[in-house]
């Protein structure tokens, strides 16, 4: 799971400087500064509509950044700098860069017309050009890792929400990403299914995966997170050690939010 490039601890994998995004007149991100170190877990918290998903989607260019600089592993997301100008990348080039960034969605978004196994091997075979037999072997291992080896032949509609989400994690891992993005991976799940998914994520963090996680699971953020970031109305209100920030926040807005969630 480690990045193929030189693996320097402490060098930022994600670096955001004044990132802005607006939909029409609505400013959703009003200058986000954030650094995610290699191998660390960054948890994004904040009220609904604060721009957490939008920021996460900017990181893999599912949304276009309107201003500021956003780099992943030193490369600008969605643009190439040439002289003093930023040139938008072609779809082909964007797709190329997204291969290194895995994403897990709130509503799983598994491909419903494919079995769990086919979901996992689709991208390695079609995008990375891995031989089918090898992709299959790796997919079986990944499904084993998320505890679903016996569900490989099931269609998503035949799996519980928690199982679907774990297949979705395996699917993202199959591309051997150096960064994993999670957008509220457990909020669509029944309470008793949340634990299994969080366990898989915890294991992933222990193995040194760099992760950016939008979550309302305060317990997870406190135990697994290396940094916690509290966002509100398109700005970062406060960021720091989750054991500090989530227990004894400095800002009144953070405190108000936490008192509602806990």
């Amino acid at each position: 799971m480690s990045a193929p490039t030189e693996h320097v601890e402490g060098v930022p994998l994600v670096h955001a400087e004044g990132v802005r995004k607006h939909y029409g007149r609505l400013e959703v991100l009003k200058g986000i500064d954030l650094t995610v170190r290699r191998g660390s877990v960054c948890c994004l918290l904040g009220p609904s509509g604060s721009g957490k998903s939008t920021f996460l989607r900017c990181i893999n260019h599912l949304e276009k950044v309107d201003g500021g600089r956003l780099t992943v592993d030193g490369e600008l997301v969605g643009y190439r700098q040439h002289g003093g100008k930023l040139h938008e990348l072609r779809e082909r080039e964007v797709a190329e860069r997204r291969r290194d960034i895995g994403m897990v969605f709130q509503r799983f978004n598994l491909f419903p017309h494919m079995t769990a196994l086919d979901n996992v091997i689709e991208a390695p075979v079609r995008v990375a050009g891995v031989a089918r037999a090898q992709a299959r072997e790796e997919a079986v291992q990944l499904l084993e890792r998320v505890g679903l080896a016996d569900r490989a032949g099931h269609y998503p509609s035949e799996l519980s929400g928690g199982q679907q989400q774990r297949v979705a994690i395996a699917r993202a891992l199959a591309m051997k990403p150096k960064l994993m993005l999670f957008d509220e991976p457990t909020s669509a799940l029944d309470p008793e299914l949340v634990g299994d998914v969080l366990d898989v994520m915890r294991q992933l963090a222990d193995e040194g995966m760099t992760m950016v996680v939008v979550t309302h699971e305060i317990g997870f953020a406190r135990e697994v997170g290396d940094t916690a970031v509290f966002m509100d109305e398109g700005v970062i209100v406060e960021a720091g050690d989750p054991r500090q920030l989530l227990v004894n926040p400095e800002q009144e807005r953070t405190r108000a939010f936490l008192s509602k969630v806990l």
Partner: protein
Amino acid sequence: MVELKTSRDTAAPAHGLTADDLVVVPVRNHGRWVAAAASLAALVGLVGSLAGNDNLRWDIVGQYLFADLIFDGLFTTLWLTAAAMVLGLALGTLIAVMRLSSSPVLYGLATFFVWIFRGTPLLVQIIFWGYAAALYKYVMIGIPFTDITFFRAETNSLLTPAVAALLALGLNEAAYASEIVRAGIQSVDTGQTEAAHSLGMRPALTMRRIVLPQAMRVITPPMGNETINMLKMTALVSVISAHDLMSNIQDVYAQNYQVIPMLVVASLWYLALVTLLGIPQAWLERRYGRGTAQAQQVSPLQRLLGGTARTARVGNRVMNKEAGR
């Protein structure tokens, strides 16, 4: 009717009965049986009067039903239907993707195409292609406004009645198919595209592997209807003598004046073909319904035959596994 005994002991005892004594009686549809009997009687009367009608000349029907000329026409009708549907679906998919693209040029071209081919009568389009040679005597492929040509042929030799019929039916179908395909594509959740993109899949690959297969579930039933329509619409190409079933039928009754019996021959064949087309349609609907709850629904006919969609689907999966997918 089977009378089921409920075994719920929570219900309050009524009229001194305990819950165990209560019996569920399903609704009885007396009206349905009366209506069925009346319809059947009417149908028998109608068929009887037709069968006994000497003006219908069943001997002529029998004489031509399996005639070589009719089989020749059937063959043309079948390949024309198949080819026009393939052309229509392929071109229609392309136009649907163009209409959904962010490029205003592609969108404009596609919209214009649909506007023209849906906005004029099919009969006019067929006659137009049949007589297009009057418009352009030669077909040339070359560089415009220069003398360089790579290919040159007389329009009449290329645009035979069969080719003209295929073009007319295929292009017209493309306009309708494009709307069906577009609706199908739009029915697929955008989360699917995002998931595919997040895995590094390019737009074209995403469309081919993720979106279109799911759109097929929405596309298949109306395209099945389009195919059935197409089979019958091929009869229109008799106006340019494309030698389809209807053209040949007309040739016969132009000589023997037995219009009604010949139309019965045509109708029997069209009916038979339309009925046969229902089989692949049902198969396709099951194939593209994989992984959805709808695939488990059972039609009255399937129930009658004892097979269920559920077993078919599980069978599919087992086969996929065996094929090493």
